């Protein structure tokens, strides 16, 4: 029977949707109001649920500016046992490859061995869904992405994933990386009990030197892709034809009439 698992969750702090701004260099401006990435909240919830069932501990790991501590503290108040933040100026400009390398080394150094690694399906700022599978490859883990259901088996997990045209269920051995969809659960808020415990816990902040990487391997210089330019989107469409008759009914009638009698660009004989 699965018992006392060490469960790791990767968490990213993201700008709240209204505060998302791209800087001139194509990078996200992270100075505004922030939150724990919604999908990471679902990943954390699955981790806490699993620990509550089988025992063990939940470690959360993040990479970001020092203020990402907020999201890790939030994770502790929801019930995570330990939190690590990789924060270093050298990490600026990391693409998903460089992010995955740095997170993998952080996980190896501070929270290994482990049984299950959770990631949110994607973040709402980058929207790539890359980092989970990239870390899984670096660490040589099994993986299942787009997971919305997890059940315990004797020595493995039964997980269900979304694919095109339906769902697939797997019996997957450990250690495994699972990326979690928003449909999987409703994340809990902070609990009084966990918050009281969290008072005595501290987010451990670690640097690139602590995980044994050189400055060439991280940040912009460790990234095989860069943003070469950012352009404003131009939408070219003739102006809208508005219908504003005496009643909504008349507006609808007029609109439908106009729609169905619209002239074609092609000559019809």
């Amino acid at each position: 029977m699965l018992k006392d698992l060490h469960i790791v969750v990767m968490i990213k702090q993201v700008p709240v949707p209204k505060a998302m701004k791209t800087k001139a260099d194509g990078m996200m401006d992270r100075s505004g109001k922030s939150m724990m990435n919604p999908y990471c909240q679902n990943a954390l919830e699955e981790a806490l649920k699993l620990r509550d069932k089988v025992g063990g501990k939940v470690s959360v790991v993040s990479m970001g500016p020092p203020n990402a501590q907020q999201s890790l503290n939030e994770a502790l108040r929801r019930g995570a046992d330990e939190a690590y933040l990789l924060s270093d100026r050298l990490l600026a400009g990391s693409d998903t490859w460089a992010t995955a390398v740095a997170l993998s080394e952080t996980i190896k150094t501070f929270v290994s061995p482990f049984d299950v690694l959770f990631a949110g399906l994607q973040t709402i700022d980058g929207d790539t869904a890359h980092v989970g599978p990239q870390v899984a490859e670096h660490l040589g883990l099994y993986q299942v992405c787009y997971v919305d259901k997890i059940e315990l088996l004797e020595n493995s997990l039964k997980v269900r994933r979304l694919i095109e045209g339906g769902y697939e269920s797997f019996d997957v051995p450990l250690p495994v990386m699972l990326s979690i969809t928003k449909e999987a659960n409703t994340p809990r808020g902070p609990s009084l009990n966990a918050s009281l415990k969290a008072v005595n816990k501290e987010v451990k902040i670690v640097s690139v030197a602590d995980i044994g990487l050189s400055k060439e391997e991280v940040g912009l210089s460790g990234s095989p892709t860069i943003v070469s330019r950012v352009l404003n989107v131009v939408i070219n469409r003739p102006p809208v034809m508005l219908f504003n008759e005496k009643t909504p009914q008349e507006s609808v009638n007029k609109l439908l009439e106009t729609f169905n009698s619209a002239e074609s660009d092609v000559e019809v004989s």
Partner: protein
Amino acid sequence: MSEDDERARRRAELDAKVPIVDLRNGAKGIATWAQTIGEDLHPAALEILGEARRISSKIDDQTVTSIVIGKNAEKHADTLISHGADKVYVISDDRLEYYRDLPYARAVTEAIKEINPEIMIYTATALGRSLAPRCASRLHVGLSADCTQLDVGQYISRKQNQRFPTAFLMIRPSFGESKLATIIGPWTYPQSATVRPGVFRPLEPDTTRKGEVILFTPNFTDEDWKTEVLSFENEADRLELDKADIIISGGKGIGKDGFVMLQELVDAIRENGQKVELGSSRAAVNAGYISHDHQIGQTGKTVHPKLYVAVGISGAIQHLMGMQSSRKVIAINTDPNARIFSVADYGIVDDYKNVIPPLIEKVKSGFKFNFENV
């Protein structure tokens, strides 16, 4: 000569002095992953193949190779060739009937190593977004996600004193704003990208095209097969947003009741024999008014129906990205300044509660949208 011309001339002169760097090390041509669903090709497999064919004219070696994996995968070779592939790598194995990350990653990475392309394109579907990062990581190459435009062009880094005449330009909408970011990575090969389904059109099939079929056997390990497939649930009632002629889409503002009303409109249009589906904005999904599979936009589906009706949708750029190539757009919104009107052909500035009921009445009394001239 004007000042601008003079400046452009000087710039070109400086650019020409930047030495050409070629790190391809023999990598040439383009490869694509042709995704299958069960034993069928995913429509996006042919879309990315068509785009690969189009951009291939801009690189030295114009060979386009498709990699197809699955049970009886060889049966897709002719379709892929007629849609633009010069070569098809077929990895056919009964154990590949259902998608599993590790055997698929093994198959794709070993095929890529043998093909040695300079550009690799995957579909940004649920499977592509699982497989591509795993493969790119194994190959130690960069990867750009969810691209909506692809091109090949010159990239000059004055700082590094490098000029790449035919860099792969991977273009995607940037977060939260009306901006497009061009991502490049001419330092590792293949330069790799996932591409959003529904964005590109497949080529018209040409059955006279000739191509080479290569049956490829990867060196699978026992480890690759340890994840066991327990079941596959077919979603019979799956939405067909990509096949609908009409999409009626709701925003967060209309609330749960609004979606009930839109569903009634959808049912009435369907009753009249027109192909219609219900769509939504991301905010409406996040608010829990409707399930994620209805979501249209940057993080949902890209659609181009003949008619898109946006009801109570303000028109966040992420949403516009997913529907702006619709043939005709009708917008209904209380806010005359809502951005959705900038991409709409027809509009009514009013509350959906006033507009949708008479629309339902018209449809129920037999009104059909005429697409002859659209």
